[in-house]
């Protein structure tokens, strides 16, 4: 019996594109696979870059990390444009709701003045650090090799722009345009911010995409997000009258956790590839985590006083534990 | 004077937008093509937020234009109230 007159039952000739059949077998491919595997040109490239003639246009050898197949660095979230944008659109709707609620009810006015100042001093300069993270991830995305690794870096970079913009809006809400100017002045000149600014500027001259990924996404953000948003904002400050602000940083809290899982899984695959990779990753981790610990200490100490050292050490232990669990020995 | 133009997907969302453009720009003309509508005018065209709002009976953010926009030509100036397209020469 014909149920749907418009439906013609016809046999497909094939299940997937050839390159996906070679990778995953003769079965229907997911949209993530279609959107991510082998979509970057790899051979018969025409010209060498005039900006760096020693490189190829797509060149895996600009990293010290060596992968037999860079496509192995897949994203466990399976983000391609659609799933990425839809996820972030839902999150932005929630964030928009939180901003509207706090502003319309004047909840931000209930934050005690001293606390408000402390929040401004902490969060507003961080928008510049988030911009640095944007720069680094966009570089990885632009020059890194293989879409499964590079596409999440672009998404990450754009997320960092969003974080910088949310932080700016928090600054505007709590302290107006002047708060942004003050935050920038702190970022530029205040003693406690200089180690972090120096660290960010030092990352901006790194051109090995994988080193940059380790320095920024694994180490700096891996320390910064749990400490600033979980421990300080949601922990100490929310308990002392800043709960409305923690509604406004919900995006950062969630995002920090989500992106950490991705970053650790990428490290896991790259380190498991070879002993040499594991050694280099370990080296980068040590170098950049020492720098990051020293850079974050004065920023956190401003809020947490004597507890800062312990908090930071705990953060580093957590990060190391996550990496160890992923099989990366440091 | 060279034409500026803007084209939208032809659907229910864009009908009032095109209507508003034609009402606000007496020299503008609409040209229907499969699945799209192209509105052009000599030298200059203004899309007013308030005119669209009058037609749809709700608030409208000019950035909503992006959803159904296909293409445009001319220098773009946008603020909260209007989007203008223009050629100087």
């Amino acid at each position, binding site marked *: 019996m014909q149920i749907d007159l418009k439906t013609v039952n016809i046999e497909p000739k094939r299940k997937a594109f050839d390159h996906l059949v070679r990778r995953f077998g003769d079965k229907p491919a997911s949209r993530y696979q279609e959107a991510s595997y082998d979509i970057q*040109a790899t051979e018969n490239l025409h*010209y060498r870059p005039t*900006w760096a003639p020693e490189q190829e246009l797509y060149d895996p050898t600009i990293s010290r990390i060596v992968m037999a197949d860079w496509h192995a660095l897949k994203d466990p979230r399976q983000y391609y444009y659609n799933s990425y944008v839809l996820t972030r659109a839902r999150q932005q709707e929630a964030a928009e709701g939180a901003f509207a609620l706090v502003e319309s009810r004047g909840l931000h006015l209930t934050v005690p003045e001293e606390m408000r100042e402390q929040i401004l001093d902490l969060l507003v300069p961080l928008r510049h650090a988030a911009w640095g993270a944007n720069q680094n991830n966009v*570089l990885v995305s632009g020059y890194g090799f293989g879409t499964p690794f590079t596409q999440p870096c672009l998404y990450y970079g754009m997320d960092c722009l969003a974080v910088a913009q949310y932080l700016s809006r928090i600054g505007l809400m709590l302290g107006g345009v002047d708060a942004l100017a003050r935050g920038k002045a702190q970022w530029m000149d205040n003693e406690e911010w200089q180690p972090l600014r120096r660290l960010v500027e030092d990352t901006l001259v790194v051109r090995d995409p994988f080193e940059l990924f380790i320095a920024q996404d694994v180490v700096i953000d891996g320390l910064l997000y749990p400490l600033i948003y979980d421990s300080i904002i949601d922990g100490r400050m929310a308990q002392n009258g800043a709960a409305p602000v923690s509604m406004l940083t919900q995006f950062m809290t969630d995002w920090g956790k989500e992106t950490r899982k991705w970053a650790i899984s990428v490290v896991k695959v790259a380190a498991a590839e070879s002993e040499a990779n594991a050694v280099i990753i370990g080296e980068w981790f040590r170098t950049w985590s020492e720098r990051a610990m020293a850079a974050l200490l004065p920023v956190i100490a401003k809020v947490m006083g004597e507890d800062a050292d312990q908090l930071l050490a705990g953060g580093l232990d957590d990060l190391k534990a996550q990496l160890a669990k992923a099989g990366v020995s440091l | 004077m060279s034409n500026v133009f803007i084209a939208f997907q032809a659907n229910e969302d864009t009908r009032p937008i095109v209507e508003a453009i034609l009402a606000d720009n007496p020299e503008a003309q609409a040209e229907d093509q499969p699945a799209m509508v192209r509105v052009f005018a000599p030298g200059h065209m203004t899309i007013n937020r308030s005119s669209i709002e009058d037609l749809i009976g709700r608030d409208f953010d000019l950035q909503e234009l992006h959803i159904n926009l*296909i*293409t445009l030509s001319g220098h773009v100036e946008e603020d909260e109230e209007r989007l203008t397209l223009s050629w100087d020469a």
Partner: protein
Amino acid sequence: MDMQVKQPKLGIKERYSLLTRDLGWEPSYQAKEKIFPYTHYEGIKIHDWDKWEDPFRLTMDAYWKYQAEKERKFYAIIDAHAQNNGHLNITDGRYLTAIKLFLQAISPGEYAAHKGFARIGREFEGVGTQVACQMQSLDEIRHAQTQIHAMSNYNKFYNGFHSFADARDRIWYTSVPRSFFDDAMSGGPFEFITAIGFAFEYVLTNLLFVPFMSGAAYNGDMATVTFGFSAQSDEARHMTLGLECIKFMLEQDPDNLPIVQKWLDKWFWRGMRMLTLVGAMMDYMLPKRVMSWKEAWQVYGVENGGALFNDLARYGVRVPKGWDVANEAAEHVSHQLMLGLYQWCFGTSFHAWIPSEEDMAWLSEKYPDTFDRYYRPRWDHIRKMAEAGTPYQNLGLAQLCNTCQLPAVFTEPGDPTTHCHREVEFEGETYHFCSDGCRDIFLEEPQKYVQSWLPMPQLFAEPNFGDVGKWMEWVGLKPGVDNGDYHGSQDEASFEAWKKHQSATA
């Protein structure tokens, strides 16, 4: 308690500026030239990056919100298309050649644009410029992916789509767009934005996405028209970015004018040549046509491009070199290329065909001064050969232009009966070109273009060594399945059978 006043609402410009430009800072621990190493070597002088303005001012949250809305619409349509055998709604199976070519040749260009814009989204020194380029990078990966997703269902039922990733790097005609994008990406950031952001996006993409997509709609291909228009809605932003960048360079320093003009000359010609593929798609591959290539060129090339260059004249910019040649060529190039594709269609992952009487009547009407005079006789001759059982195949290899990589099938300006061919001797080697435009581009940067990968000699090199069968395997082409004349192909048989079955059960 401190009496806090509600913060005044900021205007959109001021707010956007605080949320983008204000995020950057003047570095002091590292030299600016080390952070932005590529912004000087091309000779472009920028004195104040803050003078650059993005007219659309999308913050990231607004970007997610509006793009998500576009994405929901798009995937709803292609899901329905896949579930309801939407491929049977197209007017004729031969139409698929157009979108096979699209997937093999154009979608990889979207991906290249994504990479290129990510690079300049990092390399430019101004935050406003960077953010706009980054958003474009994000849009471009969207376009590559939505195109692959839209074609995925066609791949399940028709030939010629399955090996697009192999074809991209290996088959001969995809080298046309890939050399274009490789050329742009191997230039510095300012040349890249001029090439892709301005010459391609502003002057030329309308030709690809507007009339061709409208044609796809007219031919019942809802999957393609949906990605086409959905992509083009992003292009409106991209075009504006391209135009802003050109104005910005020209306003920053008068010394920039000759450099920018040189790039406009080059990239207009490069783009025009590449879009010849789209000309053939529009004039020959759409069973039902909306407008001819010549008409589209008139609206989007001559009128719109003309308006633009008139406007830019105040900066001293003139229309690109080759503008008149290109306008004259719009009468010819689609025919010349399609004749070429037909004679070499044993080596293409798509089908070609001899236009029907009805097709030719339409072409005569649209090209009253040229088609009957120059091209109908050639098609008639080819048809006679096919009818006699000796279809015309040019088993000699096409001479490809060293710059644009198209087969040199074009004719002399002002003389459509004389084949145009140019040669240059450089460092003991002879290089071949399809036109003065392509030759001049070589002469500007010979050290770059001697590197061109030429796909034809590859047939004789490793790993194929002159074995056509091996070459076909290497490029992912299944002989007798993906290539040759549409008439008598598997695609034709399947499409006709399924259509019949559909109308029988309906």
